[in-house]
Each structure stands twice: as structure tokens, then as C-alpha cells.
């Protein structure tokens, strides 16, 4: 049995680690995972992290308050770079949100049993990341309270409606649908676990709260039957959805005629990058979580290795996309596309581009080695590097294309301000805060799905 803070022992060459530690029963699985939530002793590190996140969240609120008071002029955006940090961060966060649904839906349809122990918190990660993402376009409007009728088709006496030919409106529908469906997927998965917490709770108040959330779930065969159908259908629906969301985000760029944006291969390029950064974030959360809570029996080295492999695979697609981006720019023989290529390699922001190649292509090649994939701290470092690289990618796409378009007289530079930075860092704090609250009050690993993974869960003929 794994204990708190245990260091992993790498299995001998040729042996794959199991997806669930040996010696587990229905009871031990339940107690270990439900114990994280039902314990009276809040861990010290939890209190410290939440305190730090609350401080960052306070900074975030200060920056947002000042932004709403003064307007978006406190940010570094101006003509020609009108999108800046807000859109860079929006695309970055929404990309991170993609791994959750990929793990819960696509890997479910492909019957990848190992997804079970990481799907719950990956879904939570998705929801919280999409929340952070959604903040940026809202704040970027400057007047979020008016954004309701700019973004959504709301009948008003003004008789004004959104422009449905614009990808920005497609984006509103894609992101809000994605948030809703991710939330439903997460919520439906939690119902049987809430029933378990209701039945294991030691105090009346806790039992009542989880009882209400469980909605009277009793594990009836008829209920499970409908539940499984609904769950599989949701997975089938979420699969094209997750591919559509970042495709639509990429159309925000591709439908315009800005050099460097106006390309048809943006949708798959963006989706691959999204999954890449999403798996990096899953690892950034899973590695400390399993270590701090002693969950090495449930999130084993096998899970980390598989996430590493998926990162490697999507990283190669991303590398190919970078190559094609430059190749097509050159091959088009269009002077503006050529200028864009030149600007990336030799322009004022070229160091961002070289950093991006280093972070997203060169360093992740280390994932070819089993010694990297099987050592949690090394995998953690690679994940941080990848997420940095993905942020740089969005910076390169957004800022470097906008700063120099067709007419040199309208070229300009972009400098972010401290308010940009405070809001960006603030969303990290907000995200981590939500995540830590989540692992304290809800089972971070799906208990009922873990039970069904056990060998004794099978009916013997």
C-alpha cells in the first residue's frame, strides 16, 4: 500500500506498472478516496496553498476592480495590437481545458481503462480552466455587464442581435456549450460518489449535504442501465465537441485576413496544441496530488507514462504544424506571408519564437526516453516547460501577426503592463484555489469507476 510522500520505484525493464496497485478491495478503494473528503483533519499543505491562492485571488480582484473602474487602457493593448494578453491567455486556458474531456470522453470510447483514475480531476481541471478562459474575453470587452447582449442573442427593446456570420459569436456558443457539457459530464459522474459519501458520512450535516447532492441515488440496476447509456452518449457527444471548440477558437484567427492567421490548417493545429498543453496540466496537477495524498496505488506510474506518451504524440503534431506554418509562408510566395516568416525569425519578438521552439519541440523530445516518462519529477519539469511553450505559441500567434500587418506605417510594438500580469497570475491563483477546494469537498478520483476496475468486480460464469 502506498503511503503519504512515498517515492516511486521504477519497475524492471520490460515490465509495465499496473493501473491499480495490488491488494485493493472495494472497501479499501472507497475508504482511501472518500477519506480525502471525509477526514476531519485538513492537511497543513492544503491550508498553506489555499492561503497563498487567496492572496493571489485578492490581487486578481484588485486588478479587475481597477480595470472595470478605469477601462482597458490600463492594459498594454493598443492599435495595432488590440488583442494582447487577454486573447493569449484566453486561448492558453481554453487549450488546457481540452485534456479533461479528451480523457473522459475519447479515452472512454476507446475503452482505455487507465483513464478512470484521472478522469474526475481532469474534468474538474477542464471546468476551472474554461472559467479562467471565459474571464478574459469578458474583461476584454471592458464592460462585461453589457457583454451579455453583445455576445448572446437576448431579446431587448433595442432590437440588436449578434452577428452570426462572425467566428467570435461561434466562439461564444462553442465555449459556453463546452463549459455546460463538461459540467454535466462531471456532475453526472459525481452522483454515485455523492451517494457513497452520504452513506459513509459520520455527521448528520455532512450526510445531509451529500444526500442532497446525490439526489437519492441508490445504485438500482435500472438506474445504472440508463446512467450508463446517458454517460456513453455524453462521451460520444463530447468527442466531436472537444474537437470543435478549439477549431472554432482557431477560426477567430483563420477567418481574418491577417498574415500568419489566414491559413486552413489552423483548426487541427490548435486542437493538437490544446491537447498537448492539457496533458501537461494534468501531469502538473496529478504528480503533486498523488504524492501529497499518497495516491500512488490509484494514479500509478502507468498513468504518468501514458500521459507522457500522449504528450509526445501531440507534441510531434505541433512540431509538424510549426514546420508547415513556416513552409506554407515561404511556399505561398506572398510577400506579406514571407514578411511574417521573416518577422518570426528576425523580428523584434524573435526570441519568443526561439524560446517556443525550445520549449515545445526540443525539450519534449526527452519524452522518448522511458527514464523521463517514469520519473515523476522529471515529467513534471517537462510539463511546466510545455505549458510555458504553449503560452509562448499563443503569444507568437496573437502578437507577432498583429504588430506587423500590410502597411509598415501601421506597425507597432506591444508591451504588457503590470495590470496584464496581475490578472494573468491572478487566474493561476483562482484556478489553483478552485482546484484545491474541489479536492477537499469532492472525491478527486471516481470511486465507483475504480471499483469496477478491480478484478473481483467481474461476474464469473
Amino acid at each position, binding site marked *: 500500500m502506498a503511503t503519504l510522500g512515498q517515492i516511486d520505484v521504477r519497475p524492471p525493464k520490460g515490465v509495465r506498472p499496473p493501473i491499480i496497485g495490488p491488494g485493493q478491495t472495494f472497501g479499501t478503494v472507497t475508504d482511501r478516496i472518500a477519506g480525502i473528503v471525509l477526514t476531519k483533519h485538513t492537511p497543513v499543505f492544503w491550508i498553506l496553498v489555499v492561503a497563498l491562492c487567496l492572496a493571489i485571488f485578492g490581487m486578481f480582484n484588485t486588478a479587475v476592480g481597477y480595470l472595470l473602474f478605469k477601462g482597458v487602457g490600463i492594459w498594454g493593448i493598443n492599435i495595432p495590437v488590440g488583442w494582447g494578453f487577454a486573447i493569449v491567455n484566453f486561448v492558453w486556458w481554453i487549450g488546457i481545458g481540452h485534456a479533461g474531456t479528451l480523457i473522459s470522453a475519447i479515452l472512454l470510447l476507446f475503452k482505455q481503462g487507465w483513464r478512470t483514475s484521472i478522469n474526475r480531476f481532469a474534468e474538474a481541471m477542464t471546468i476551472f480552466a474554461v472559467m479562467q478562459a471565459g474571464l478574459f474575453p469578458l474583461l476584454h470587452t471592458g464592460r462585461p455587464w453589457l457583454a451579455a447582449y453583445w455576445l448572446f442573442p437576448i431579446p431587448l427593446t433595442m432590437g440588436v*442581435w449578434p452577428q452570426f456570420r462572425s467566428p467570435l*459569436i461561434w466562439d461564444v456558443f462553442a465555449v459556453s*456549450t463546452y463549459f455546460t457539457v463538461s459540467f454535466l459530464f462531471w456532475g453526472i459522474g459525481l452522483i454515485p460518489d455523492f451517494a*457513497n459519501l452520504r452513506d459513509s458520512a459520520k455527521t448528520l450535516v455532512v450526510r445531509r449535504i451529500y444526500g442532497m447532492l446525490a439526489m437519492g441515488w441508490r445504485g438500482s440496476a435500472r438506474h445504472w442501465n440508463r446512467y450508463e447509456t446517458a454517460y456513453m452518449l455524453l462521451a460520444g457527444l463530447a468527442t466531436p465537441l472537444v474537437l470543435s471548440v478549439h477549431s472554432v477558437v482557431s*477560426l477567430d484567427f483563420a477567418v481574418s485576413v491577417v498574415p500568419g492567421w489566414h491559413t486552413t490548417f489552423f483548426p487541427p493545429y490548435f486542437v493538437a496544441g490544446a491537447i498537448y498543453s492539457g496533458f501537461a496540466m494534468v501531469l502538473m496537477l496529478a504528480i503533486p496530488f498523488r504524492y501529497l495524498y499518497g495516491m500512488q496505488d490509484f494514479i500509478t506510474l502507468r498513468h504518468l507514462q501514458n500521459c507522457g506518451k500522449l504528450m509526445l504524440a501531440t507534441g510531434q503534431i505541433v512540431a509538424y504544424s510549426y514546420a508547415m506554418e513556416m513552409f506554407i509562408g515561404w511556399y505561398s510566395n506572398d510577400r506579406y506571408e514571407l514578411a511574417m516568416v521573416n518577422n518570426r525569425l528576425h523580428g523584434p519578438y524573435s526570441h519568443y519564437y526561439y524560446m517556443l521552439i525550445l520549449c515545445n519541440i526540443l525539450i519534449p523530445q526527452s519524452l522518448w526516453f522511458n527514464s523521463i516518462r517514469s520519473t515523476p519529477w522529471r515529467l513534471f519539469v517537462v510539463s511546466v516547460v510545455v505549458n510555458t511553450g504553449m503560452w509562448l505559441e499563443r503569444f507568437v500567434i496573437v502578437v507577432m501577426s498583429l504588430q506587423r500587418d500590410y502597411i509598415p506605417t501601421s506597425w507597432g510594438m506591444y508591451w504588457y503592463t503590470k495590470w496584464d500580469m496581475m490578472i494573468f497570475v491572478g487566474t493561476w491563483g483562482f484556478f489553483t484555489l478552485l482546484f484545491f477546494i474541489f479536492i477537499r469537498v469532492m472525491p478527486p478520483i471516481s470511486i*465507483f469507476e475504480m471499483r469496477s476496475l478491480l478484478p473481483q468486480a467481474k461476474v464469473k460464469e
Partner: protein
Amino acid sequence: MTAAPIYGLMAEFETPTELVHAAKGAYDAGYRKMDTYTPYPLEEAAEAIGAHHNRVSLIVLVGAMLGMIGGYALEYWVSVINYPINVGGKPFHSWPAFIPVTFECAVLGASLAAVFGMLALNGLPQPYHPVFNSPNFVRASRDRFFLCIESQDPRFSVSDTRKLLESFNPDEITEVPY
């Protein structure tokens, strides 16, 4: 002596195999109003009690159609009828541009139908249910497998049904009061 009416007889098993065996046996003996309670989805149990068909898929299809038609109709009404704006000479009814939102609305409608349809068919939220009166039933969400034959079944009789359940060697049989 007239006994107080009971909801049914509940048998508790330690393994899924025993439960499925018992459920099959009870079904073969002619019982229909019964249910199994398991801590994780057990397809074999649903099949054993003849409950492996459901109408969730149909509801999801209806939800998807409604979402799709609703999304497209909204775009058409806004862009063609109520608020026509000439954008770069494009036709008011520029249907290719309407596809992404139509798709998202179809997925949204289908997903909402899947979750709320499933809950509605299951009769949830349900604040009270008699099976929770069974003393050991808290373990149905943990590590035990239950079969409950309900008193509503025409073949139900406390003594005969108990005898049948005993033949499956359960750990315990309890009467479930209303």
C-alpha cells in the same frame, strides 16, 4: 395477526457473481418487480432482471434535433427576418456560416436531454425511498450487492419469497418496511 405492509424482501450478497446468479434465479421463478443494488454499474445484473433496454437514446435524439432546429431557426430569424445586415455583400441567408452554431446547439440540446432525461426516467431527485430502511443498505454504495423482490409482485409472499432467496445463500435477508 396482520403484519404491517412491507416494501419487499432484501437479500445481501458479497460478490457480484452471487448476486447475478440470484437475480437470474428469481427472474426464472417468475418474479418481475425486483431490482438489484450495486456499488458500480453491473450490466449482467440489469440483464438478469430484464432491464437492459431504456429510452435514454431516444430522448437524446429528440434533444439533438430540437437543439439543431432551434439553433438554425434562431440564426435564420435573426439574420434574415428580424435584423438583416449586409456584410460584405454576403447573402442574408448565408447558411455555411450558420453551421458551427447549429452544431453547438445540437450538442447542447442532446447533452441536456441525456442528463435530465436520465434523471427524469430514474425518478431522481427522490428524497425518500423505502430501500434505505434496510439496515445494511448503506453498503450498497460501498462493497455489497443487494437484490430486492418487491411486495407489489403478484407472486410475492413473505414465506415463499424468503425461501427462494434463502436458496441463493445470501449473507442476510431483511424485510424492508415502507
